[in-house]
């Protein structure tokens, strides 16, 4: 369960202060898929950074499965993130000096898994995105769609409770995006992972249980596909 209360975040640029998030409230149930939409610069990525503990809020709280992430200091926040949160980015952000399997295995190793067990789990994750045969390829030899599939495998290999996706199809053409989407959805569904995705893609948003719009620093319900919590 993801619970966000009175979340605020401002950025200073010279003398000016941009209030990006302003008392934002949200609740996401376990296994729920939520899409967040909004104009460029509305604070969508900032929100994901605050949920994951990458950034710290000026005020308010973020609670994931009963743990107040925003109240954790370093390195507890990082240790929580690596165990319970997965990330998929618009630009894949794979490590170019590691091959496909190593990129996936990296997260397992950060969580303490080593050796044959880690290798087997990373191969299984690649299998589930259809890339087991490219396990030892260099990442820059893969197409954009393949790189995003590796990123999805990496995000889910350690079976986090929460997957945060920042424009997961934003850097892909329509056809490739249509290939990626089922992979992302089926894998989160199969694992019961909560999915919070930021997107401009209406087609992607349509697959979510709920769509929220970030406007003037707060989330507003846009379409209730199924019953859901939220302001």
């Amino acid at each position, binding site marked *: 369960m993801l619970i966000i209360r009175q979340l605020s975040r401002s950025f200073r640029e010279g003398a000016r202060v941009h209030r990006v998030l302003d008392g934002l409230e949200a609740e996401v149930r376990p296994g729920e898929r939520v899409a967040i939409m909004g104009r460029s610069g509305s604070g969508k990525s900032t929100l994901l950074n605050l949920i994951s503990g*990458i950034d710290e809020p000026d005020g308010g709280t973020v609670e994931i499965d009963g743990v107040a992430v925003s109240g954790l200091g370093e390195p507890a926040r*990082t240790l929580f993130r*690596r165990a319970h949160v997965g*990330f998929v980015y618009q630009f894949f*952000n794979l490590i*170019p*000096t590691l091959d496909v399997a190593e990129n996936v295995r*990296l997260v397992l*190793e950060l*969580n303490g898994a080593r050796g044959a067990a880690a290798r087997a789990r990373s191969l299984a994750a690649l299998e589930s995105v259809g890339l087991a045969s490219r396990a030892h390829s260099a990442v820059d030899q893969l197409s954009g769609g393949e790189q995003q599939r590796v990123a999805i495998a990496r995000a889910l290999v350690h079976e986090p409770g929460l997957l945060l996706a920042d424009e997961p199809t934003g850097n892909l053409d329509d056809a490739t995006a249509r290939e990626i989407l089922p992979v992302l959805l089926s894998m989160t569904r199969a694992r019961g992972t909560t999915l919070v995705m930021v997107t401009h893609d209406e087609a992607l948003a349509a697959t979510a249980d709920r769509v929220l719009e970030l406007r003037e620093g707060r989330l507003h319900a846009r379409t209730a596909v199924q019953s859901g919590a939220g302001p």
Partner: protein
Amino acid sequence: MTALRAASVRHLLRHPAQLALALVGLALGVGTIVAVDIATASARRAFELSLGAVNGAATHQIVGGPGGIDERLYVRLRTALGEASEPRARLAPVVEGYVTAGGRVMELVGVDPFASAGLEGGGRADRPAPFGLEGPEQARAWFTWPGAVLMSAGAARALGVTAGGGFELEVGGVPHRATLIAPLPGTGAGLDTVILTDIAQAQEWLQAGPRLSRIDVRLPPGTAGGPLERALAGLLPADLTLRSTRAASRETLAMTDAFTTNLKAMSLLALLVGTLLIYGAVSFAVLQRRPIIGVLRALGATRREVLVLVLGEAAVLGLAGAACGVLLGLAIGRGLVGLVSRTINDLYFVVAVNEVSVPAGTVLAALAAGLATALVAALLPALEVAGSAPQLGLARSVLEGRAARAARRLALASLLLALGAGLTVALSRRSLFAGFAALFMLLIAVAAVTPAVLRLLAQAAARLSAGVSPVARLACADVGASLSRTGVAIAALGMALAAMIGVGIMVESFRESLREWLVQTMRADVYVTAPGVAEGLERRIEPEVMRAILALPGIRVHSEGRRVTVTSPLGPVDLNALSLAPPSYAGFRFTAGDPARAWSGFAHGAILVSEPLAWRLSLEPASSLTLITAQGAHAFTVAGVYREYGNDRGEVLIDLHEYRRWWHDDGVAGLGLYLAPGVSDSQLIAAVRGAAGSRQALLIRSNASIRELSMRIFERTFVITRVLYWLAAGVAAVGLLSALLAWELERARELALLRTLGLTPRGTAALVLAQTVFMGVVALLAAIPAGLLTALTLTEVINRRAFGWRIDLHLAPAQFSNALWLALAAALAAGVYPAWRSARAALASGLREE
């Protein structure tokens, strides 16, 4: 290997040029330290071996003044000690002096082989007693062959002598015939500059009469400082002292302390430059990977894990660089050994370094220094990247903004460092360490201010060039806006250039001061000296020869001199006894004391001391210095302090008549002859040569040639300094090359974009070269004022505290030319490849590069 480590290692391997240049920088820094350590340790070891080779078992020595020790004392002591109950002290007499054989200066050591063997406590298994005399044949030869000697196989080979063969040796210019009994068995370690002979033979050759140079003593273990030592000391006349051999060798080695400290400081400078290079390399590697590290942090790598990752890389880099540095140091060290031993031979004592000593501690210390350097250098970038929030795609402008703020803070730090350097000098009066600390603070201050200077000048140049060409404006603005990439390398270059300018000015100032001093001091027209080592007692002009010379009609007036080393409670002191001709008085420039009163005091038994001695022993006019004379200890009043560059240990000037009265030595080692009107120096030289005839081979030199010789020795002394400062400069040049190369290659996309907008290949190349040259020139501009301050510190603080002398500062444009050429060469070398590459790059692929 974990994926995290694999990512780290592969990043380094993907940038081989960057990796190699960082390694070369560190290896040069560590290598210089190792080389200096090896060279000084080898010279020290050779000296210790030569001490141990003759009567190595001695624990103490009985020494006297220049007149030596009456040999009857040895007999009396043996008798007195023989009557004492066990444990007994064992004694061995020694007569030593310097001779010339085959053009090499060697030490002639006369021993009593049986007494020396007795010193060993009955002989040692590894040294057949006595002194390598194998069998009765050799023992018979030792006592019956005229001029019988022993020497090491190496020395025999160098002289081209075989067993039973004869050769000529010269003592104070007087030739003698010697015969080699046989080369000593074994390696003869430490004996390569030694000729061993019977004590009576040595007394004859050295004209020592019935006198000994010293008596070696072996006290039984555990009795040092006890009643036996006190009893032995009590048997000695007032002009003799008993001192431990360890203290004696320490005193001799201490003569080279200032010299070796200076060498070590120069090598540390190379490592300091290397530290900045490692900092540059690591911070650049971190900078390149900032997005990746951001991903790692987002995926859950903790700050500690990132810190360990970056520091781990630096540690591997440091160890690899240090290992290469040790190998490089071994190679450079072998070359440096020759230079160091030549300087020691020129200035201090005779030593032949045949084996290169590599102390295990040096290798370990070098590895530790490399590791520590890399870790210290990497700490800041590692802390910075580990501490920053794991945001992805941190804007370049943010990074450069940080670098600009850092440059401003560093400029302030630079000011504080410079003030700190000034305070350190002001508050520490004599400490050489504090002097070097101030020097390094000053050099780090230069490094700290250089990025701010670069930014300011680049911005000013961008504004000025805006009206001329947008490309020129872009070139300048780009430099100012890339501090995060180039700042550290420019700082390292600035520091090396400042050191180069400073050392250049110091050497030139020293050279000029020495030249002026020589002109002022060398007043006589022709100098006649007995050949040999400066303070050697055997250097004396034969009385008959001297009488014949002084009777020559071409001489108007003359000075006479004798140089010896005497003992004092504060250690050995070099004494220069002079009977001055009237024009010679003007050759002394007093730095303390009124000249008229000083000379009056000098004529009445007071002494004058040179600046180095006055500094070393804290002497000033009206203070006193106790010397051990033939009549026991006597406190001499100091009448004045004079400038002197010929002897860095310092010396005492005493009237020749006073010297004879106190030390009972009537020898004269040198004459200064003033020409009578109408006589040329070449005529007088020919006449002196004729007067000496075949009786004695004297060194007869004109004023001009002796000055030239002095300057030649000076140049040889500074060869090592030059080698070291070029090494430091080389490290800096490599650093600049590394950073600029990486920066320019990283900008391939930007340059390709300029090409598509219409910049020609030649224009692109010119742009790149202009930028690198601009940076080189900025480093030079920052280095010039700092170089002047460095020169002031070197001359007024370091030289003063190390050697005690003052040097007048001499400035000439030529002193800056080396720095200018280095700055331009490094900048051009760094720019040529990227310029060539950017001019030839395929535009399409260049634009695709991320």
